[in-house]
């Protein structure tokens, strides 16, 4: 057997002729694997020489640093100089620091203690209620509002990252007129002029996102009453097929709420209800409530997912079928006909899909009134309508699926709003266009040529957070206030209304949409506070309004405002209307998807979200064309190869990423990248997929041609920054296996007998608190909320793409993604990995300066001021969770980022090691409060940032010496295991092995 080095040398010689990745060999290796084999990347199974060399290299890309021809003398001179200078830096006195007290101290403010205010983040599909931490008037950290139905106290990554959006130095900072700085007063003057010659509003057009603010809806109505000829368009760049689907099925656009906690069987037709659908936090909570380690395992639910591009919902599925997006409709129809729903036939469906539909139909039939069929937002209205009809036929309406009125019953109805608007603009009918919080020049379908049409409008007014692509083409640009600076209101996806209250006065000249609309009324300079409050005063009508208002602000929810349920029935002519669309065309399909991190591009300038690895691909800072391994092989392309995408006459160049789980003959492109304007973070990242999109088929279509054009684009993927070497890191089984043998994981429980835990170090009795954590892999959905929460709480620096390529990302908490089985459609598992706080921490004895050591509560402490940066600890850590500041990653210069930082956590400098501290600042705060009251810390009093953010309560923290604590009980759960416990590290984190619930009738041939 050759040593790896010899293999590398051979491969280098043969590299020119040989393809880098031999998929047949990978398939063969996977096929010969006995039992479960987990893997992280194709290169890892293939054991390509490049990958082995990469792993072998302790400091990747170090080599070229040493290739320069500096002489020994130069090196010594530089080292001597560096040493002397390094010593000198210690000889400074601290610069003087000032204490700036208030002039008049606000009530309730205690300097040094944060205050918490309830507000909400408006996002597509409704608001998510939040509780925001404020340190002396500056919001620093966002948590969910436990009383809000769309949050339940938890958040997604987008909410966690919103504080960075607020302090973004690239935000638009002034009112602009023709590119020059103007003022709000001058804008009001222009608005007054417009008002005077408005007449009935002829030629005045508005474009916004779908409205979720009752006040704004009322303002729009008032404006329409005053100026009946104005026209208002609403569009969502990602998709808005659900309303059309409901109209198709029921004849009216009803709102749908699913109760996944009541469902035994769930079928998702390309619906990412765990990750990105409106209401996904309560949906994820409901779905997981039947699967978590503590739940009754005999009542586990079953999830079938049919989708073209892997989402976290598909990754959690018991059965995931990777099909082209266009085939989903055929499956829906086949299912419908199995269940006796008249929805046309599904001719030409592949036999394996037919079989799948048959088995799923049987399973659904067996769980009438306790199942859900849910259609995805990127599927056409017909699929939504069929899903509704199936739910009705199965008796799910009112049981697991609730229907109600829509938030905005008067919303303009237009299935193609942008196309209509573009036509109006081209016809010269649009004299004035208000663009409220939208960026159509960037995200409109390419065939509309929106920018060209826009230039035909004489007066263009843009209201947005950044000087983006659209702002550049408008005469007026008014900065949009961030929601943390705004008075507003919003309804959640289930109709629950709440008031959005500001945490801080607008940092720049930001204005809300309310103020924009008010500029056209007789009272143009009204504050948003007045507008919102008077709307609610009128709606409340009672004498005790002030009291109610205070209560609403305090709670963050307006009680009893959720939509009233409604009974609906499938319209009689449904069968005729749900005509079969043409059978799927042959050839390569293109699938447009919002990016799981930067969404439709609105978060593209948020560096936290850019650096968050995408759940399935683990790519950062880029979008790629995702191809299945087989399709990539057929096309002769490999990872990072640049290809030309030619679709309906338009061309875009993009890098390829081979993605196990992607449907064959289908290419996913992700929206949100390739921004031309909008800030230093987003410009130049990725390619613009909107440039290929057409308005008639915005979600998928056929006829894509992919051609290799030579050249590569390095993609910063975090999945291979370490290898698992075939160790048992993720444990999984089927529910049936576990029910048959409840001691399935006993061999992986931590060893307690003396021989097995032999150590030369004396035992330490942990008599006080004994902090520990339990992570339930059944509950983890890989949504990244914890990752961003950790970044926000612990002042973790962003490093940028080139540093991520070198494996230098700073995240204290990462979510490892493991594949298991089949190369083309593997099962996917997520595992949050963070410092395990080992009782026998291997990192500690190797530190020459005792900068990392253990405390008497069992935490592995990291003392930044002692660290000299030898990196021995990181070298010795088997979990690879220590992060080193190779460069000065923290931004110490940008003034607007200073208030963002958590004042309770040190901002690290260059040359310092760091790692997860179990949120020691929160532990200390709680302990100090408890000690002042001479009591112990209660279970649940301390929540780590990751735990508090997790939508599914997958992370539990607490005192292991407290026998009644939830974390202690989880540590005793039958599913518990520790990672790499064979090393004798005694981790304080235990994982709960994941159980899936596959249908035996569909079990894979393995």
């Amino acid at each position, binding site marked *: 057997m050759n040593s790896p080095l010899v293999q590398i040398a051979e491969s280098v010689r043969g590299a020119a002729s040989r393809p880098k990745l031999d998929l047949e060999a990978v398939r063969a290796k996977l096929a010969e694997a006995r039992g479960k084999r987990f893997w992280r990347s194709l290169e890892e199974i293939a054991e390509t020489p490049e990958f082995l060399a990469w792993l072998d290299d302790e400091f990747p890309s170090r080599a070229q640093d040493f290739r320069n021809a500096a002489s020994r003398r130069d090196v010594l001179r530089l080292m001597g100089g560096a040493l002397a200078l390094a010593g000198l830096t210690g000889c400074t006195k601290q610069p003087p620091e000032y204490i*700036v007290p208030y002039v008049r101290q606000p009530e309730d403010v205690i300097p040094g203690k944060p205050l918490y205010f309830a507000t909400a983040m408006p996002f597509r599909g409704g608001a998510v209620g939040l509780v925001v931490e404020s340190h002396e008037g500056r919001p620093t950290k966002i948590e969910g509002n436990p009383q809000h139905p769309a949050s339940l106290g938890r958040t997604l990554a987008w909410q966690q990252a919103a504080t960075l959006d607020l302090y973004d130095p690239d935000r638009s900072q002034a009112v602009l007129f023709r590119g020059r700085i103007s003022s709000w007063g001058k804008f009001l003057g222009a608005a007054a002029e417009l008002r005077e010659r408005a007449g009935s509003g002829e030629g005045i057009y508005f474009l916004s996102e779908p409205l979720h603010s009752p006040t704004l809806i009322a303002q729009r109505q008032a404006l329409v009453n005053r100026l009946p000829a104005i026209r208002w368009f609403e569009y969502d760049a990602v998709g808005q097929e659900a309303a059309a689907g409901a109209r198709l099925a029921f004849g009216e656009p009803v709102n749908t709420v699913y109760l996944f906690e009541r469902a035994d069987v769930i079928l998702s037709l390309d619906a990412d209800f765990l990750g990105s659908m409106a209401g996904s936090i309560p949906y994820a909570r409901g779905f997981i409530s039947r699967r978590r380690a503590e739940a009754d395992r005999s009542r586990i639910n079953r999830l079938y997912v049919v989708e073209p591009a892997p989402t976290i919902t598909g990754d959690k599925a018991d059965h995931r079928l990777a099909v082209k997006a266009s085939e989903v409709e055929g499956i829906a129809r086949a299912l419908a006909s199995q269940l006796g729903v008249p929805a046309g036939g599904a001719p030409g469906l592949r036999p394996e899909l037919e079989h799948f539909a048959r088995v799923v139909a049987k399973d659904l039939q067996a769980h009438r009134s306790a199942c859900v069929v849910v259609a995805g937002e990127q599927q056409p209205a017909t699929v939504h309508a069929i899903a509704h009809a199936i739910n009705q036929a199965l008796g799910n309406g009112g049981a697991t699926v609730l229907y109600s009125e829509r938030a905005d019953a008067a919303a303009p109805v237009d299935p193609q709003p942008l196309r209509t608007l573009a036509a109006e603009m081209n016809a010269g009918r649009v004299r004035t266009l208000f663009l409220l919080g939208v960026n159509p020049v960037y995200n409109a379908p390419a065939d509309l040529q929106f920018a060209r049409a826009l230039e035909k409008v004489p007066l263009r007014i843009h209201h947005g957070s950044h000087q983006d692509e659209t702002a550049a083409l408008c005469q007026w640009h008014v900065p949009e206030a961030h929601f943390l600076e705004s008075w507003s209101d919003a309804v959640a996806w289930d109709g629950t209304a709440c008031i959005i209250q500001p945490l801080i006065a607008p940092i720049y000249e930001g204005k809300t949409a309310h103020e924009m609309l008010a500029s056209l009324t007789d009272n143009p300079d009204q504050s948003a506070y007045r507008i919102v409050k008077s709307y609610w005063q009128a709606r409340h009508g009672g004498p005790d309004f002030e009291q109610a208002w205070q209560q609403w602000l305090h709670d963050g929810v307006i009680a009893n405002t959720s939509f009233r349920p409604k009974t609906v029935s499938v319209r009689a002519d449904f069968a005729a209307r749900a005509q079969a669309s043409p059978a799927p065309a042959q050839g390569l399909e293109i699938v447009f998807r919002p990016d799981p991190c930067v969404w439709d591009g609105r978060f593209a300038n948020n560096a936290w979200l850019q650096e968050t690895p995408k759940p399935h691909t683990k790519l950062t800072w880029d979008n790629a064309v995702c191809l299945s391994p087989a399709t990539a092989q057929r096309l002769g392309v490999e990872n990072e190869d640049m290809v030309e995408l030619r679709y309906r006459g338009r061309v875009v160049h993009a890098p390829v990423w081979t993605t196990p789980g992607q449907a064959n003959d289908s290419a996913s492109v992700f929206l949100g990248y390739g921004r031309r304007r909008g800030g230093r973070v987003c410009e130049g990242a990725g390619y613009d997929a909107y440039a290929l999109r057409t308005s008639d088929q915005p979600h998928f279509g056929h006829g894509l041609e992919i051609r290799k054009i030579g050249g590569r684009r390095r993609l910063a993927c975090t999945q291979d920054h370490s290898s698992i070497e075939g160790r048992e890191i993720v444990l999984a089984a089927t529910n049936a296996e576990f029910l048959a043998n409840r001691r399935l994981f006993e061999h992986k429980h931590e060893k307690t007998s003396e021989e097995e835990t032999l150590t030369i170090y004396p035992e330490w009795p942990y008599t006080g608190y004994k902090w520990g954590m339990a992570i339930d892999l059944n509950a983890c959905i890989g949504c990244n909320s914890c990752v961003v929460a950790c970044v926000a709480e612990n002042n973790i620096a962003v490093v940028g793409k080139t540093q991520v390529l070198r494996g230098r990302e700073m995240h204290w908490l990462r979510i490892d993604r493991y594949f298991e089985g089949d190369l083309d459609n593997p099962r996917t598992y997520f595992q949050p990995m963070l410092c395990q706080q080992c009782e026998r921490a291997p990192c500690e004895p190797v530190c020459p300066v005792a900068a990392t050591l253990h405390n008497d509560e069992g935490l592995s402490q990291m003392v930044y001021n002692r660290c000299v940066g030898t990196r021995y600890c990181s070298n010795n850590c088997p979990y690879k969770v220590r992060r080193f500041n190779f460069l000065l990653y923290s931004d110490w210069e940008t003034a607007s980022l200073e208030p963002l930082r958590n004042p309770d956590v040190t901002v690290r400098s260059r040359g310092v090691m760091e790692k997860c501290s179990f949120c020691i600042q929160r532990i200390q705060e709680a302990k100090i409060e408890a000690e002042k009251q001479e009591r112990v810390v209660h279970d649940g009093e301390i929540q780590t940032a990751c735990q508090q953010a997790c939508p599914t309560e997958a992370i539990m923290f607490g005192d292991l010496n407290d026998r009644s604590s939830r974390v202690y009980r989880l540590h005793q759960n039958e599913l518990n295991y520790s990672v790499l416990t064979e090393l004798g590290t005694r981790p304080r984190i235990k994982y709960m092995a994941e159980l899936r619930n596959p249908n035996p009738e569909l079990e894979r041939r393995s």
Partner: protein
Amino acid sequence: MAQVFHRSANTLARLTLVLIVLLLGLAIGGIMGLDRSDYVTDVSFAKAQPIQFSHQHHAGALGIQCVYCHSTVETSSFAGIPPTHTCMSCHSQIWIDSPMLEPVRASYRTGEPLQWVRVHDLPEFVFFNHSIHVNKGIGCSTCHGRVDQMPQVFKVATLQMEWCLNCHRQPEMYIRPRDRIYDMAWQPPPNQLEVGRKLMQEYKVLRLVNCYTCHR
């Protein structure tokens, strides 16, 4: 051949060896001494403040209680510096024309806050909490000295880690009854060790010497 070196060179060589050791020791001692010197630690140096505020006058002669101005010392990590309004609650009545107080009046008029120079300045990687110390029987004067006798505030302790640890290792030496926290004139009784141990038990005071107690 004559010897190159005179015999006395032996002595010189020995002396040189001794001197090297001595000088090295002196240098190290000097650096350590310098690091602890008042010049580096700012102990006993009063800093120029925007207003010549005298604790001697207010806390000493007039007997205004510490918490009248440092109102959050029992509840928060930060003891609190009074807002301009607190100053003006008296100085809108007395000394209303004093030129010395013009910055306070200016702040009151314009809404621009006063900027005090921090005297007790800990490094940014140290997290100190006033409330827990005050609640567990550590008085103001233990760390801040006789502020009631200072016309201008200066540091009496180095605030270096060894000074902190000195108390964290043996709190019984410094702990006092809770009702004497704000007593500037408090002196440890002759049987402080005995009293201290009892108070430690009573107040459930721990010897906290873990890094994470202060470094986060």
